[in-house]
């Protein structure tokens, strides 16, 4: 079987004022798989995602997505190519309703990075609206769709953000701690949801500290520490790696 790589992070380096946040990161993500990135706090996991989505331009190296080099592209261009991201602290539209929160990315996906869509009336656009409602249903927020996003609890905000990404049906979904702060119940629901998407063939990169989530979802795990990849492999391989146990998992696991 020829594995198709969707994303290739090639020899990426990033320094922050003397601090080496990422060094020699070389990583490939296979299509349709769920790839977990774990590692201690400050290992550079979020920074790595920032490099992928164009928030941070690496000092060296390149990121190749679907055969195109995306380093140096603007975040919106990268999203348009099919990469969506859930942030570690939810980035949502606080002043809009949940429904509108999901409709905005849906429009962005349909209309491209710039379309002055003044002639359609929001409400007559049933396609977008139905799609948005469906996703909200999936993440379990349908009954709150007319409430303002600012009034959500943090768990709900996370799910909302996930919905905003899912509605775009991205080729690659990047999740930065999607279940942090979620109750076990909601975590389980999210795991189920992500499994369902996996069935749909979407490629996912997931950063998580909750090993339960990692081991339920991941096909492949990369362990970062101090800005370097210290281990890589299937969940089982990684779990048994003594380096990983020392640097990350600690004695209890």
């Amino acid at each position, binding site marked *: 079987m020829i594995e198709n790589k969707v994303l290739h992070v090639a020899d990426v380096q990033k320094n922050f004022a003397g601090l080496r946040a990422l060094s020699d990161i070389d990583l490939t993500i296979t299509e349709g798989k769920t790839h977990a990135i774990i590692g201690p706090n400050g290992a550079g996991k979020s920074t790595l995602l920032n490099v992928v*989505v164009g928030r941070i331009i690496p000092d060296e190296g390149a990121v190749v997505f679907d055969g195109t080099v995306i380093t140096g592209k*603007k*975040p*919106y*261009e990268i*999203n*348009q190519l099919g990469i*969506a*991201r859930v*942030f570690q602290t939810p*980035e*949502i*539209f*606080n*002043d*809009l*309703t949940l429904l*509108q929160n999901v*409709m*905005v*990315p849906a*429009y*962005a*996906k349909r*209309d*491209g*990075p*710039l*379309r*002055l*869509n*003044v*002639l*359609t*009336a*929001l*409400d*007559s*656009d049933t396609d*977008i609206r139905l799609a948005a409602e469906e996703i909200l249903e999936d993440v379990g927020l349908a009954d709150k769709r*007319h409430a*303002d996003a600012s009034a959500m609890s943090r768990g709900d905000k996370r799910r909302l953000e996930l919905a*905003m990404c899912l509605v*775009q049906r991205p080729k690659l979904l990047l999740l930065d701690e999607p279940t942090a702060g979620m109750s076990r119940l909601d975590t389980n629901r999210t795991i189920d949801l992500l499994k369902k998407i996996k069935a749909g063939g979407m490629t996912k990169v997931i950063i998580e500290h909750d090993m339960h989530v990692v081991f339920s979802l991941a096909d492949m795990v990369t362990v970062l520490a101090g800005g370097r990849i210290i281990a890589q492999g299937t969940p089982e391989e990684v779990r048994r790696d003594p380096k990983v146990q020392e640097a990350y998992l600690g004695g209890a696991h």
Partner: protein
Amino acid sequence: MAPLWPPRRDILMTVIFGIVVFTMPIWLQPFGAAYPDLMQRFAIYGIFAIGFNILFGLTGYLSFGHAAFLGVGSYTAVWSFKLLSLNIIPAIICSTLMAGVFAVVIGYVSLRRSGIYFSILTLAFAQMCYNLAYSVLTPITNGETGLRVLRDDPRIIDAMFGSTTVAVPRAEIFGIAITGMTGFWACAVCLMIAFYVALRITRSPFGMMLRGIKSNQTRMSYVGVNTRPYTLVAFIISGMYAGLAGGLLAIVDPLAGAERMQWTASGEVVLMTILGGAGTLLGPFVGAVIIKYFENIFSSLGDATLADAFSFLPPSVEHVVVTIVSPFVGEGWHLTLGVLFMIVVIFLPGGLVEGFRRIGRLFRSKER
């Protein structure tokens, strides 16, 4: 956020709005404001504020230099009267377009920054326009006296259709002179169109994108939206509204002065919008009406008028009341305005319209 509205209500809302506007000469009578000059101002500044709200209310970018577009619109309209024709149609078109051109340039540069930095950039551009219009651009603007329409202007379009010599040059539309009430009707028609367009923008996906930008720019770029062109378009639209308003100012009174570009004028539209309620559709118009009402009516009330108004009271009481009230009218009308600003912001955050809504809700919930 209210649930999404069905579009039929857009038309209905515009019609109701139109009725309110067109009946102003009737219902403003008791307020002493039913004379053409003031009603024209209501409509014109209403357009200005509604347009400003498209930028500020939707995207959250607070421009402190919108008066520049008002001024550009006015100068362009007067030049159109001077060079092309006394007909208002070319004047309106030219002033709106010219303001649009200025908005492209100023917006393109200013929108590279956000927040207060954006505000100061727009302010700086407008102040440059103002200061230059006042000084070295005098050949174009006629400096402090203001640009006027003269009897011997060329008016090439009019010249093609016959003589350009008129007793007194006045704006007209196909032979109907734009003075007094005709001037108001012309402004009212423009106001309705402007209102409807603003309504459509607000309720369109484009409008929602703008609100998304206001709410969270970061998220916006990570869902694949290039925010800069969106804000630029909003900036241009609102600049064109200002240009239209400026053009209308010159149409109802063909003199364009540099003062209307000064920062105070830019500040005024900000105040109108916030006072009425930024982000609401009616708010900016309400704010414009109130400020212009104070400026024109309160400032002209004298002690004599007050004494008249309170003459139903016993003389001693009347005296006391007049003494208390008089610092707030006439020369002191600014004081009233200042107090009004403070009261509104302190007690009705979100502006008058939002305040009314809240009070309405309060009553409704009490009934229940």
